């Protein structure tokens, strides 16, 4: 996201000032393993110390180490503690888009869309707002033009379907089938609310996802307000109960709010790129917003198109095949990764959580990996780096955040570098000490950026 915004030429200061944007350093998962609000783990954006060269996971598993250095995320990196302390991932002196700790954003999507729109228009894009009624195909099945309510016929060589759930081109025109993910991810309804801050309340620098009776709630801190929501499975709770659960989670500020239960379908298209039409965004598919995968997929799709915009229809066919192959893999891997958040839950008092740990609700690929990880800590070979949206580090954070242990006793000869492991753990504590005192509070940084702006260099 940082790379995309910066390459479009949007200033990070403008993003913070005009889109209610804040920094996001990862996600905090509360009450996923146990039905206990004090139980949590982090999936930070920093990778573990030694990542790619020296795998700390087996060492963290050793009792003396996890007793001494704590949760997996706080033992192998310091971002967990920076988030807990409410600190920002950079300073006012850090240039735009550069970081002290890795980060993404929380923002008001409508406002970001507007910012990008204005940028595009300034670069010469002709922006027409209209309703697409239908598409006109040529003999080969390619879209020649779309018919709009006010503007009439708009011709084109290439059409991106960004019409959201409506899927005006990919669904209505091309009838590309939808592959449901419901047997893996049960949630099919959402409720959302905007909650004001208390005076001087800090802004969480991470998404907080809290396990609930039949789903989970999100808690996202923008600069002007908090966005909260409950994603749940209607097979495991009634809509009335869901509203009750959500209102309880919000607390006193829920009073007077009216809620709407919005249905959604988890899944994705069999193809995203068909002929000269590419579906990006909700028209391509939807999954519960647990790890912001929708945003990443949009980002990846746009990057792909901008780098490989075909020169003609013959080339387009080849590129579209590549795209579809790659993105199907991405969607499958994301579904497995989201499912991974559920599979080691020890919440035994609710059907939702019990059903989620059943093998038949996991893909064959995920079942295989879980079998493997029982005896082998996750390895780069377990992911497909070309297509996996979430890298090995993400898998490690979730897996070990849920207190998973690989039984490495038969391969203990592989894990004899205790001195080196200690050095990593110790170095991490030193880095935390050093960085903690130099970083500003998250809200203070947002206020400073609004006031002074960030420098470009």
């Amino acid at each position, binding site marked *: 996201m940082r790379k995309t915004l910066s390459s479009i030429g949007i200033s990070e200061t403008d993003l913070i000032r005009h889109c209610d944007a804040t920094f996001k350093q990862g996600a905090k998962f509360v009450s996923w393993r146990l039905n206990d609000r004090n139980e949590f783990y982090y999936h930070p954006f920093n990778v573990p110390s030694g990542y790619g060269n020296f795998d700390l996971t087996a060492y963290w598993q050793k009792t003396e180490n996890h007793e001494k250095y704590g949760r997996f995320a706080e033992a192998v990196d310091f971002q967990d503690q920076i988030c807990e302390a409410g600190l920002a991932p950079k300073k*006012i*002196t*850090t240039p735009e888009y550069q970081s002290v700790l890795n980060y993404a954003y929380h923002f008001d999507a409508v406002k970001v869309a507007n910012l990008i729109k204005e940028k595009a228009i300034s670069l010469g894009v002709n922006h027409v707002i209209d309703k697409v009624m239908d598409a006109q195909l040529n003999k080969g099945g390619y879209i020649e033009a779309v018919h709009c309510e006010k503007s009439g016929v708009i011709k084109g060589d290439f059409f991106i379907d960004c019409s959201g759930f409506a899927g005006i081109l990919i669904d209505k025109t091309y009838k590309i089938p939808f592959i449901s993910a419901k047997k893996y991810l049960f949630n099919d309804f959402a409720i959302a609310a905007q909650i004001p801050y208390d005076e001087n309340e800090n802004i969480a620098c991470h998404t907080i996802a809290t396990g609930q009776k039949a789903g989970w709630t999100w808690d996202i801190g923008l600069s002007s307000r908090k966005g909260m929501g409950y994603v749940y499975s209607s097979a495991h709770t009634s809509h009335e109960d869901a509203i009750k659960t959500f209102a309880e989670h919000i607390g006193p500020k829920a009073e007077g709010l009216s809620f709407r239960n919005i249905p959604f379908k988890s899944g994705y298209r069999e193809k995203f790129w068909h002929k000269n039409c590419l579906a990006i965004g909700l028209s391509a598919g939807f999954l519960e917003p647990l790890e912001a995968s929708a945003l990443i997929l949009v980002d990846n799709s746009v990057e792909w198109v901008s780098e490989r915009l075909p020169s003609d229809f013959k080339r387009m066919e080849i590129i579209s095949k590549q795209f579809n192959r790659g993105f199907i893999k991405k969607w499958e891997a994301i579904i497995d990764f989201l499912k991974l958040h559920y599979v080691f839950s020890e919440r035994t008092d609710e059907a939702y959580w019990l059903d989620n740990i059943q093998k038949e609700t996991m893909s064959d690929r995920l079942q295989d990996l879980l079998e493997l990880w029982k005896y082998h800590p996750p390895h780069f070979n377990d992911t497909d780096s070309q297509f996996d949206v979430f890298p090995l580090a993400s898998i490690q954070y979730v897996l070990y955040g849920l207190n998973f242990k690989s039984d490495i006793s038969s391969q203990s000869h592989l894990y004899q570098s205790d001195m080196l492991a200690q050095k990593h753990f110790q170095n991490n504590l030193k880095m935390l000490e050093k960085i903690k005192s130099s970083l500003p509070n998250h809200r203070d940084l947002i206020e*400073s950026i609004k*006031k*002074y702006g960030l*420098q*470009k*260099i």
Partner: protein
Amino acid sequence: MTAVNMVPLDSVKHKDLHVNVDQSYGHVSKQNMVPLLAFEFLQASTNFPIVFVKQQETGKFKSVALLGLTGEENLIFSEGKIHSNYIPVNVRRYPFAAAGKNAQESEMVLCIDENSALLNKSEGVKIFEGDGKPSKATQEVSDFLADILAKDAATDIFIEFLLEHDLLQAAEVKFQLGQEDDLKINGLYKVNEEALNDLPDEIVLTLYQRQYFAAIYSHLASLNQFNRLLQIKAGFKPQ
């Protein structure tokens, strides 16, 4: 060292105060940089490096005279000696300062560091006359500070111009000091000569009209004074 405590000058509270003059400017002896205004670059450039740094509070760039190579080191003003033929106005003005630069306050407020060792009740120059009016010396200081404020604002505009035309870049400063590890100074910025040479004609004309060239080339020439700091350091014995 006591922390600086700048307060507005008050004819009642401060009526008996006198200011001693310290020709060695000991108050900066633990500071490795002081603000330097664009109009000073030319005269200052043969003494110490002139660089750009970001202010910790705002991230905004300021131009500074670099007077030492490590945090609290001042090689130029130390031990009662001055290794410079130019004294920056922001050193000379002490213990006075001006506040009230923002648009709402048209009047400049003259401030004084109440903790300054230069203040006393008998020696030096009187701040107020017996009738409570500012002394002639105070009036002169006030005019001097008003001039500094205007030139400080002009310096900000100069730096904005450099940024707007992508003329600043991070400066890599690294030394080998004897047997010690390399000394690296981070957070310093300088004018990018290549970018300067690539400027379109109309921008070059603007630079000329605004008389920025003297400041830019003085700054670039002053970067050679890192060697001078190293030489002073070699013969320098901290207290």
